[in-house]
């Protein structure tokens, strides 16, 4: 007989004992440990997932902030560029204005210097010419230049047209009898009296008062001034053409110089 029923019963009991012991010492502890570990892993996993969510949110927030910052930066940069450009244009405009002003000032200064130069030139020319003329007159006619000037002046008065004389008389009347004789040199009392007598003789005046004045700007000349007319002889008139010639000459010369500098 292959089956021993006592052994069968004993083996059933043995199996049940083994089942109980293994449940007590193997399955329960192991399963409990695995479950505990699983719970811990799940807890860690959930925690990690939450932290990952938080990190994602923070990352997205950071990205948004970064984008905002970038926009702000771009805006600030654009504003700064525009401001800089505006400032640059203003500075350039200001510099141009200053340069323009300086150029104008310089040109004015140049013009003033030019005018001064012409004035000096004119005076020098006049003086030199005067001196030359005086010497020439002395050498040739043995005559003083001032006397010749007075003679020419009186001669001009003598040769006045009737209408001109009438106009002078009218103007003397309008100026309440004020007559002014201006000369570039001192007139002696005899010469003054001579002129007064000559004017009376020419019926230009009667008993009006004549005032004699000296004007150095005349260079060499003498004039009769009323309120509305003037009868004069002035060496400057002769110099006027010469001065105009030189003025034109220097003007052209300056123009050429400037064009040359510009090139």
């Amino acid at each position, binding site marked *: 007989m292959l089956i021993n029923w006592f*052994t069968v019963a004993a083996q059933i009991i043995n*199996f049940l004992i083994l089942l109980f*012991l*293994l449940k007590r010492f*193997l399955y329960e502890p192991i399963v409990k440990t695995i479950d505990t570990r699983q719970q811990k892993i799940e807890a860690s996993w959930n925690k990690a997932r939450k932290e990952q969510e938080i990190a994602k949110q923070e990352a997205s927030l950071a990205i948004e902030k970064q984008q905002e910052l970038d926009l702000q930066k771009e805006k600030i940069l654009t504003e700064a560029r525009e401001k800089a450009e505006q400032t640059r244009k203003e500075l350039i405009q200001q510099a141009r204005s200053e340069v323009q002003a300086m150029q104008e000032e310089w040109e004015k200064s140049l013009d003033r210097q030019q005018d001064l130069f012409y004035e000096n030139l004119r005076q020098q020319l006049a003086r030199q010419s005067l001196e030359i003329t005086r010497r020439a007159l002395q050498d040739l006619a043995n005559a003083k230049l001032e006397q010749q000037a007075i003679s020419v002046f009186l001669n001009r008065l003598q040769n006045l047209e009737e209408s001109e004389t009438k106009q002078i008389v009218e103007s003397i009347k309008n100026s309440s009898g004020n007559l002014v004789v201006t000369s570039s040199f001192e007139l002696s009392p005899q010469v003054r009296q001579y002129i007064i007598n000559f004017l009376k003789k020419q019926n230009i005046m009667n008993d009006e008062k004549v005032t004699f004045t000296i004007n150095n700007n005349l260079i060499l000349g003498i004039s009769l001034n009323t309120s509305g007319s003037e009868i004069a002889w002035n060496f400057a008139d002769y110099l006027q053409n010469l001065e105009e010639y030189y003025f034109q000459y220097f003007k052209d010369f300056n123009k050429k110089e400037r064009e040359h500098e510009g090139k």
Partner: protein
Amino acid sequence: MEITPDNIIYWQREWLTLNATIVFTWVVMAILVLGSWLVTRNLSVKPKLSRWQNALEIIVETINNQIRDASGREPTQFLPFIGTLFLFICLSNILTIVPGYQPPTGSLSTTAALALCVFVAVPWFGIRDRGLIGYLKQYLQPTPFMLPFNIIGEISRIISLAIRLFGNIMSGSLLVAILLSLVPLFFPVVMQAFGIVVGVIQAYVFTILSMVYIASGMRAQRKT
């Protein structure tokens, strides 16, 4: 040369017999329980585990997975019964490589005892799951005329379970014993190694079939 370790008797008084089957069963039990106790004394829930704890966790998890695959249910309630069946049969069979060892599974008494346990476990789990009437109804399916055939099928599959294991292990032991007398060198070693494989496979087959029987009883109840 004995065909079953039941016949190797160490001690006997009247009907009380202490044969090799019982003694080596105790040996296997002692190894299993002591080993489990030693390992599970200091269990760690931290990721760093001892090798033995790791091995036991793998074994338990593997059994759990097999139960889950075979039954389609949560393995918790089946684990002690199915796990004990597998571990006991498996270790009993593996230890055949130890000289002088007599596998308890080579005794028809042992396999019959285990099969009887399965025979009881099937209605035990079935009734616990769906109640007595619900369980008994399955024997009347698909018609009440099938009742005798269902009962015969129930008994026969338990007998086949017992005899399959017994036959395989007994034949393996006998084969090695016969070969040892014929070709004493080398060849028995190969056969013994082959015997271990057969032993593990038989343990797996016995366990999975038990699980399938238990689960089929429970599934049958659910269908009704």
